[in-house]
């Protein structure tokens, strides 16, 4: 009865290694994705038609094709053009390029959500254009963008499982390897499922605590009734819409 669990947990070092790889890849990919998202949003709001066009092609091209295909393109197809990535780099690149397109739209919507009156008011009291952005637009945009951005980060963590398909030993790939060695499917995949649930929930929880502290007035209305439950913060917004 307990023997399968004992076998499963004897692979703890491999699971921990994989957990680390998944985390590192997700964090790195998200950082690049955020930079891409800011650049993308600026491009889509640019005065130059060409930049707007490039931004639109990026967003629509990425959002209307599967991530797995984007990953395969980077890993299997780019070498044909002389661009070579190892599995980790390809994973980071694919996840970053993909999430970057979604973040472009999130950040663009966030910038748009700041009422025009705020801009006009800031300008009329004589703030320089740079200060208008830095002290008026940016803080307000950040506030409205924070929850969907965090959700996107969680999507990157879950999406990093696809990198298993190019043989990077992250969590999912490690599960497949150990499964083929031990055939303890139920035990191994339960462990991996729990590890992913742990990652996504801890991320949501930490982000929520930070969000409560960082924004004034607080991001979520306080009081016990309206506060979202610990688990329901995960995937709060429906993905991709």
């Amino acid at each position: 009865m307990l023997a399968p669990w004992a076998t499963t947990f004897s692979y703890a070092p491999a699971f921990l290694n994989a957990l680390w790889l998944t985390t590192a890849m997700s964090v790195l990919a998200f950082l690049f994705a955020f930079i891409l998202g800011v650049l993308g949003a600026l491009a889509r709001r640019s005065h130059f038609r060409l930049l707007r066009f490039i931004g639109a092609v990026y967003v629509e091209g990425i959002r209307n094709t599967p991530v797995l295909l984007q990953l395969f393109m980077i890993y299997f197809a780019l070498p044909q053009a002389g661009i070579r990535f190892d599995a980790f780099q390809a994973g980071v690149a694919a996840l970053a390029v993909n999430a970057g397109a979604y973040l472009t739209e999130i950040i663009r919507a966030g910038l748009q959500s700041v009422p025009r009156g705020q801009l006009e008011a800031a300008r009329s009291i004589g703030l320089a254009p740079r200060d208008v952005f830095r002290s008026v637009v940016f803080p307000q945009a950040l506030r409205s963008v924070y929850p969907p951005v965090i959700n996107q980060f969680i999507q990157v963590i879950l999406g990093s499982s696809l990198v298993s398909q190019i043989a990077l030993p992250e969590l999912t790939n490690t599960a497949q390897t150990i499964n083929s060695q031990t055939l303890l499917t139920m035990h191994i995949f339960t462990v991996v499922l729990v590890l992913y649930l742990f990652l996504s929930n801890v991320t949501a929880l930490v982000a929520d605590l930070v969000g409560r502290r960082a924004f004034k007035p607080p991001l979520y209305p306080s009081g016990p009734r309206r506060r979202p439950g610990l688990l329901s913060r995960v995937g709060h917004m429906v993905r991709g819409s």
Partner: protein
Amino acid sequence: MGWQGIIDSSGILFTGFVNTLTLSIATIILGTALGLVVGVLRAARIPALRAPLRIYLEVFRGSPLLVQMLFIYFGAAYLGLRGVETFIAALVALTLYEGALISEIFRAGIEAVPRGQREAARSIGLSRFQIERYVILPQTFTIVLPPLVGQYIGLVKDTALATAIGYFELVREGQAIIDRIGMPIEVFVVIAAIYFVICYPMSLVARRLEKRALHA
């Protein structure tokens, strides 16, 4: 260049296209049905169902679809269900996953209908089922439709993961072609274009519905 090779492989590509479409449509039907049932039950706040539905939702939303799919595919073999086809395993996993996401769309739509509607329906003597069927759900339609179409776009793209368990949808057929003739860039670009042709019109429809819902 050697586009001739890709033209020669168009039969394989077409098979992949049909398989992707079959899996997508089957998942849309089953996933929407599951999502509708779970969404209505969750909005009804039935005490006995609260915890199990919540657990279902959190597990399937908080873990990767790929892991769920591998779990179901290998798990079926482990439990002695021999010969579970890749199509069935992919369909079950996709239905459970998309159903969880879709249930939240329905729940939000139902909760957006004013309470008075339900009270009025009850006061004229409609049964619980009649209330949902004839009073509540018709009113959720405009609210639910735009995010639902958005979710279907994600769903079509998610069917690509069935590659991992060996279902011959577009991506896997693409790899099969590359194994024979090489030219990964050209082949993958063609496949990306096929997905784009399916998904982009859906994006336009979703955007339009969203605008209309805002004006309604």
